[in-house]
């Protein structure tokens, strides 16, 4: 029989306002096993915790129930309190009488009655609790960063600087990500390449960093501290370690009409290519879909011109297995497709472009060498219309676009408008917006300069329609402030397309068993307190894969993720969760149902000798749970018909005791 202490928290008036805490403490006093029951204003405070510690000592408590806020809030706190008083931390149960009682019910009598029942359920459960000791597992001191954009780069550099080896897996032939495509950055207007490329070089040269470019993660097994990852290195048909990046092949290749994805298809590249001059690794890649040699076995020119013999048409995809202690997701974002926004004539006119395309048009390394020329006829645009919130902040019922704010568009649009007016003062620039959102250091000042110093026409209202007519774009819009319809003949329309997580994120989340929100952004372990950790232990989040963010924010989150990884890798051993499945060998009949439903492959089978009732011995196949791999979901416990499989901390008996107590 347990000796249980019950501690009812007032949480100031948060609980005590709707729940008669004295009555709860009094009622629970007479529950089986309860030897002590009290209430206090703030149980989580030092004084409150001292009450618990003293009671444990004084009443020789074997288990405690804290009726307080959600266990998600303070279970860990009270477990530590118990441990400090010499009680096994898993002898603590929380009755959630705040979030799930006092805050949702207004009537004191009702709230009190429910709080007592929840308390009884917790007492019934703790009566069946057993002390649990977590297992320990070693930590592989290597990190994996998935994605080589600015987020991944920063995270990798910070981890590597702390002395731990890091691998970056980037699906493109080069790291650098979206930032490498940008021209200037707000609000300082310094050039993106100037600040990014040195970091890329740092990565390439860092002794602790390996880059797997043109590669993907295809399988993740294991768990925090012990991930087994399979990386698929796609065949680039160029020996990475031999290629010098001289670029000769990329000049000689006869296949000249391959759309250049780095410039968003606004110009062409060859079948063998280096995405841009500062690419890291600076090696050529052959596009197998464009290369005649690979498709038809005819050509082979690049191999002939290569002076170092780096071309290898027979190269195959390579699979690399590596162990990691931590994984950082930095898969970034993409602008959404403009398919569903026909009103802006994106598919009809070459002169309707997205903001990212605009970045390439103004970039010195872009298709126009930095001159702002219309894609259709190469003329200077005289009137430019920028449309904000294309696909952002959409009504869910519209079934196109995103409900969220993409966060970066207001600022880059202000930047684009300002740059145009700076370089080409004869150009009229209109910006249509719903709201201008500029919360950030020096952001609003930046926007005001665009309006006040550069004379950009900011119009509150949405563009209703863009109709190409001859060589002009007829823009119909409304000005909400003056309540007028506007008709503008524009030469160029720039759409600030919403951003969304990269498509690779969803399958990756499944592999990592990391959760995502409905928009496919990764979910944080806690939105405020643990913003760079995924709920899945050992998986961390960096950059826009977690939500839209600009460069400074990305870099700070990248650093934060790195510090979490460093904290993890600095440990030699990890203490596991003891609330895991275990199998009663005497009951188990080895049917394998549990193994089939285990998402972690934690269950294996062993042949064991058993003494039968008739004193003979038989060898039987029985399940065995790997405590380091089991995460404690409990899928196996229901798959098991004999009930041999049970879950510590959430045993069938415990849950049924709770059901019984609630239904009394």
């Amino acid at each position, binding site marked *: 029989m347990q000796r249980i202490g019950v501690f009812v928290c007032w949480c100031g008036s948060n609980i005590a306002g709707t729940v008669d805490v004295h009555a709860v403490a009094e009622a629970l006093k007479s529950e089986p096993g309860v030897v002590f029951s009290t209430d206090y204003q703030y149980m989580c405070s030092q004084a409150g915790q001292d009450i618990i510690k003293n009671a444990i000592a004084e009443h020789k408590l074997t288990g405690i129930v804290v009726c307080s806020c959600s266990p998600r809030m303070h279970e860990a706190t009270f477990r530590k309190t118990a441990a400090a008083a010499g009680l096994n931390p898993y002898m603590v149960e929380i009755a959630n009488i705040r979030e799930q009682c006092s805050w949702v019910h207004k009537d004191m009598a009702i709230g009190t009655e429910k709080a007592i029942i929840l308390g009884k359920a917790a007492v019934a459960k703790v009566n069946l609790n057993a002390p649990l000791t977590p297992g320990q597992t070693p930590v592989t001191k290597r990190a994996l960063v998935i994605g080589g954009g600015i987020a991944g780069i920063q995270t990798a550099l910070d981890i590597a600087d702390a002395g731990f080896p890091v691998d970056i897996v980037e699906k493109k032939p080069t790291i650098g990500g979206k930032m490498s495509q940008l021209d200037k950055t707000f609000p300082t207007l310094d050039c993106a390449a100037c600040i990014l490329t040195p970091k890329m070089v740092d990565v390439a040269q860092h002794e602790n960093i390996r880059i797997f470019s043109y590669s993907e993660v295809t399988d993740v097994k294991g768990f925090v501290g012990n991930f087994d990852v399979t990386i698929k290195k796609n065949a680039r048909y160029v020996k990475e370690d031999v290629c010098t990046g001289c670029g000769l092949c990329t000049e000689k290749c006869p296949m000249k009409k391959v759309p250049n994805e780095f410039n968003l298809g606004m110009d062409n590249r060859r079948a063998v290519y280096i995405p841009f001059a500062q690419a890291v690794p600076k090696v050529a890649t052959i596009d197998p879909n464009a290369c005649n040699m690979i498709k038809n076995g005819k050509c082979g020119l690049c191999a002939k011109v290569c002076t170092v013999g780096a071309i290898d048409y027979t190269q195959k995809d390579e699979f690399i297995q590596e162990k990691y202690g931590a994984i950082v997701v930095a898969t970034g974002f993409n602008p959404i497709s403009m398919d569903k926004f026909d009103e802006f004539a994106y598919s009809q006119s070459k002169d309707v472009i997205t903001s990212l395309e605009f970045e390439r048009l103004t970039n010195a390394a872009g298709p126009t060498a930095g001159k702002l020329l219309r894609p259709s006829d190469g003329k200077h645009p005289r009137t430019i219309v920028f449309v904000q919130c294309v696909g952002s902040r959409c009504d869910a019922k519209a079934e196109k676009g995103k409900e969220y704010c993409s966060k970066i568009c207001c600022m880059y649009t202000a930047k684009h408008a300002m740059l145009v007016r700076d370089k080409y003062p004869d150009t009229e620039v209109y910006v249509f917006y719903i709201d201008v959102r500029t919360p950030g250091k020096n952001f609003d000042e930046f926007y005001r300069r665009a309006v006040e110093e550069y004379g950009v026409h900011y119009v509150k209202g949405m563009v209703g329609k863009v109709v190409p007519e001859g060589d002009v774009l007829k823009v119909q819009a409304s000005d909400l402030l003056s309540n007028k319809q506007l008709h503008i003949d524009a030469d160029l329309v720039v759409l600030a397309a919403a951003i969304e997580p990269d498509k690779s994120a969803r399958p990756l989340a499944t592999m990592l068993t990391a959760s995502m929100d409905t928009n496919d952004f990764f979910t944080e372990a806690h939105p405020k307190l643990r913003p760079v950790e995924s709920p899945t232990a050992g998986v961390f989040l960096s950059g826009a894969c977690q939500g839209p963010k600009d460069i400074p924010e990305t870099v700070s989150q990248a650093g934060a993720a790195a510090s979490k990884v460093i904290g993890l890798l600095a440990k030699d051993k990890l203490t596991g969760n003891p609330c895991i499945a275990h199998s009663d060998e005497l009951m188990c009949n080895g049917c394998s*149902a549990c193994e089939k439903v285990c998402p972690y492959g934690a269950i294996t089978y062993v042949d064991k000798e058993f003494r039968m009732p008739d004193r003979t011995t038989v060898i039987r*196949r029985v399940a065995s749970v790997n405590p380091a791999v089991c995460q404690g979901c409990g899928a196996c416990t229901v798959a098991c018909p004999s009930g041999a499989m049970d879950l510590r901390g959430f045993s069938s*008996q415990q849950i049924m005791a709770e059901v019984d107590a609630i239904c009394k």
Partner: protein
Amino acid sequence: MQTVTREQLINKAVALLADGTVKCVLGWKKGEFDYDVTPAVFETEEEIRADFVWNDFCGANFSKYLVAKTRQFDGKILVFLKPCDTYSFNQLLTEHRFDRDKVYAVGIPCAGMADISKIKEICGDGISSIEADGDYLSVTTIYDDQPIKVEIKEVLAERCLNCKSKKHVAYDELLGEEGDVIDSNRFDEVAQLEAMTPDERFAFWQKELSRCIRCNACRDVCPACTCEKCVFDNPNSGVENKSPANSFEEKMFHIIRAFHVAGRCTDCGECSRVCPQHIPLHLLNRKFIKDINEFYGEYQAGAQEGSRAPVVDYTTEDLEPGEVFDRRDTNA
């Protein structure tokens, strides 16, 4: 009419014993009457020649016995399997319940088994002998001067009327002709129940299950129920119960038992055959089979050794529990 004869089976068993292929034979043993056949282990030719029978009352499915018997005997066991028995055999192998190497399985065709209670409904009590006569049984009773001719198809067991397969899905050797998987109407009764109102269904099951005496015959004969200890017998399971104390306990036992064998039940029909209270237990198991087929695609437990049962599998596109009813309501 059974197409292989008792003599064929006896000769096969004797030969396999003689050449040392098997150590013993799991077969049907003649009883007190012509219809009370008992499963038995034969170890000598003499025993086989004296007592081995093969007739229209050899319904017992031997697959489950292999779990215990393969542990008990060193060397191979010869087992005779009717087509439906082979599904249970495979399912038990899928669940690693016995060592395949310790079994020599001989498949035998089956023309369907007679249900003695149906014969007694026609002929009354007091049967003194039953003889096979082509497609008929010749039943002699102490009350009638002349034997009564009963057409076998009139007295077939429920499961044989709804036979799902005459094809053996596992064997080492086959006697006689192989049959085919049959397009049976075995889900018709389930569909009839589904078409009733909830009140009617409740009344139906309340009446049926109220007869349960919790003798556990359904469970103990079931080839899917091979737990080392059943949750209903295990005091630590929290649901241990020995008696059908009230209508809740009756339902609890049968729902959970059906759930535990869902995806594993081959629909061998033994549960309904052995129920002393004639509760149509197969209608519970078949409901799960029908639902599984409809929700997750056709699946026959035991058809293939090693197959993954739908209850331990999923797809990301599965229907929602709430859609189960919408779906049926629109179908109806």
